[in-house]
């Protein structure tokens, strides 16, 4: 189906998220949509898929102007979208997920549905068990389910929003292969990403977004510098690598074994030196979060020891770890990191251990203002944290870190931030390293892992690699390990 968007505008409060977007996508092609977080890509796709509505503008499908007000409308017109975080039902079976949303009579024809499901799986080479519960599937498999579900419902246009986040290298290969087959079958594919490599390897055409505007359309052969220039407006150079580690050991793991309901990690030995940065790579749910939580005492190991500053901390809880200078910074800022409803000043007071009964508001405000200046937080001491932007919330979280610290554990420290904020956050974290604090962090962004880590641990299904030296590891090698290849030499 030919898709044409004309003069689309969308505002969120003061933000002009889509500013006069006009875009033509011919049938049977793969259209790339490239841009940084917050550039307006997702907004446009949500408009096209009926999740939200444009303030003004027109959508034309095969020459007919249409009005799409709900996702149900969109799918009736043949537009289906795969959301970045698959919108499905983990506690239900695969086949129930497949059927849910299909129009029809009171009792779904299950046997018929299973047959058609298996046929589609066979056609595209997916191996999915219709009777399995969805929560046992990987993100990549859930994506495959969504793709065939949308095709089954008659989708002629498939929108994929950042589909390569959280899936393995193998699954990515499979996905790209499938998308190319679909394009040959005359479907229209819209591929949204902020990863240059993905877009370059797949798309017939790329539209680049920047700050709500469509700033350029490019055709192959792609020149990476040109795309970067369009995305950021100027070339960005991240700070250069600097090793801040010392020989002194801050935290030592001896023969550590862990498990949760889904996976086991066995017999990990690791020494974390002062001032060192260790990145944890892997598909989401491969064990890196379990491992990080154990380092903070949030998850009790089954066996083995965690030694902090020479003290055996095994079996102690998080607050005991905090007393030994270990802090955990979660990814979900407003859910786990900050307290909506409380002001910045109240957060500062909470994060400090001061004796006394009454709060000294004067000095607390002064302290908060000092931190606001130091961390460039756009807000006042009385601002409530939920009123701050994502970047400011992340800076506030850093401002709340106590000092001195032995070890900071971060989940996705720059997720959802623009590149400049990310660079700033890391420069602040590196300052900490120079003050002898070690850092262990999780990220699904391989560039970030390679750029900022001294050593990298790769996780795959609960297996943990030996520490890899970041300076001598390539993206390709890392990608393989994350996807489960080349582990023989590690076992």
């Amino acid at each position, binding site marked *: 189906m030919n898709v044409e968007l004309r003069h689309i505008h969308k505002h969120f409060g003061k933000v002009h998220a889509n500013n006069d977007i006009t875009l033509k996508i011919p049938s049977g092609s793969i259209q790339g949509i490239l841009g940084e977080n917050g550039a307006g890509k997702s907004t446009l796709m949500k408009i096209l898929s009926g999740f939200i509505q444009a303030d003004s503008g027109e959508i034309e499908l095969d020459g007919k102007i249409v009005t799409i007000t709900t996702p149900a409308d969109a799918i009736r017109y043949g537009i289906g979208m795969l*959301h970045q975080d698959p919108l499905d039902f983990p*506690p239900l079976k695969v086949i129930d997920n497949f059927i*849910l*949303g299909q129009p029809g009579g009171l009792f779904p024809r299950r046997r018929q549905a299973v047959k058609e499901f298996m046929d589609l799986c066979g056609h595209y080479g997916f191996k999915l068990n219709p009777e399995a519960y969805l929560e046992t599937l990987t993100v990549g498999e859930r994506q495959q389910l969504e793709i065939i579900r949308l095709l089954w419902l008659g989708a002629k246009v498939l929108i994929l929003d950042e589909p390569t986040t959280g899936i393995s290298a193998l699954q990515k290969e499979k996905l790209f292969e499938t998308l190319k087959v679909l394009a040959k079958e005359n479907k229209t594919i819209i591929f949204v990403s902020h990863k240059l490599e993905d877009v370059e390897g797949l798309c017939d055409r790329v539209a680049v977004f920047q700050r709500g505007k469509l700033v350029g359309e490019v055709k192959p052969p792609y020149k990476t510098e040109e795309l970067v220039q369009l995305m950021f407006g100027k070339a960005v150079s991240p700070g250069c690598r600097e090793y801040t580690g010392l020989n002194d050991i801050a935290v030592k793991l001896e023969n550590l074994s862990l498990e949760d309901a889904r996976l086991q990690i066995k017999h990990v030995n690791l020494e974390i030196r002062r001032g060192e940065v260790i990145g944890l790579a892997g598909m989401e749910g491969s064990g890196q979060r379990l491992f990080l939580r154990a380092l903070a005492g949030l998850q*009790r190991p089954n066996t083995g020891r965690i030694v902090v500053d020479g003290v055996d901390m095994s079996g102690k809880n998080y607050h005991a770890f905090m007393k030994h200078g270990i802090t955990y910074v979660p990814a979900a800022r407003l859910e786990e990191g900050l307290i909506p409803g409380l002001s910045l000043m109240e957060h500062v007071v909470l994060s400090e251990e001061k004796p006394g009964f009454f709060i000294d508001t004067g000095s607390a405000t002064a302290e908060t203002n000092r931190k606001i200046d130091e961390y460039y937080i756009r807000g006042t001491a009385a601002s409530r944290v939920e009123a701050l932007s994502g970047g400011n919330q992340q800076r506030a979280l850093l401002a709340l870190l106590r000092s001195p610290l032995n070890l900071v554990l971060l989940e996705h420290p720059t997720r959802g931030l623009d590149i400049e904020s990310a660079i700033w956050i890391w420069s602040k974290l590196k300052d900490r390293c120079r003050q002898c604090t070690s850092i262990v962090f999780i990220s699904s962004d391989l560039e970030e892992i390679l750029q900022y880590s001294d050593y990298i641990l790769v996780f795959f299904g609960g297996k943990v690699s030996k520490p890899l030296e970041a300076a001598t590891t390539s993206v390709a090698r890392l990608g393989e390990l994350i996807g489960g290849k080349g582990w023989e030499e590690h076992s």
Partner: protein
Amino acid sequence: MNETILIGLAGVIAAATPVVFASIGETITERAGVINLSANGTILLTAMAGFAVAVNTGSLLLGFLTGALIGALVAAIVAFSSITLKQSQVAVGFVLALMCRDLAYFLGDPYNSVSGPFLTPTPIPLLKDIPVLGTLLFKQDILVYLSYLLIIGAALYMFKTRPGLILRGIGERPAAAFVRGANVNRLRYLYTILGGAMVGLAGPMYSLSYKAGWKGTISGLDGIGWIALAITIFGGWSPIKAAFGSYFFVFLQWLGLVLQSSLTNIPSQVLQVAPFPLMILALLLVNIGNAEWVERALAAMPDRLRHLISGLLRSLRSSPPASLGVPFENE
């Protein structure tokens, strides 16, 4: 089997019928992602109003309809305030639980101890002659038969039909149901009101059948609604388990009364509450696996013991619809 015991057990089934309706109604509401905490007040109010209407019109049917209507109305208030106005479901439900109770006592004053119509048993021909089961299940009133259909129907609807699949979807992940074409908030309204109507039917089932009449504060109905809410959790949001929970609860109360004859110095009110500590214990068993200290204690155990105990806890655990009590907004 001893005939007296059999008749007693048949009485348990009859007495549990209102609880079955209320707990299945609440199960449906909560499956859609809404907590309606008002059940206790609703049941009292509909018991009174249903009775009053039946007394004034002489029509049992109108009495029951009134109950369903008022239950639906109270639920609509909960739906409006939580779905449209985004206020706390717990707060609104709790206020309604108290207010409807007082409203029942206030408006029911003139009907206190008035005699009125009530439903009599309608034995089903043939079925009633089956040994044991006939007496137990088929010499009941029509509402009891209706409850059998409700249990099976609700379970079938929820787990086998297309709209039932969507019902589970909107309580689990409303955004995902929305992209599949479900009008989440409209459906939540619908199921809250439908569930409320079922809870509302429970009231007249007492005042027009099982505990015929209205006796104000000593009607003995205060507390039933809270029990129904607990049974909903205990039943893991499944209509069949909720029904069994209801029978079990009433069975315990009956057992208390039966045993009382041999333990004469304990007042009946004391034995009547025996199910409550049991309810707490049941909730404890279902939930304790989620407690942090249990996880920590488990982690320190040797492998085999750990797997044994965590397997046991997991089989007991029931997890609520993931978006229970969470309002849905698209963007």
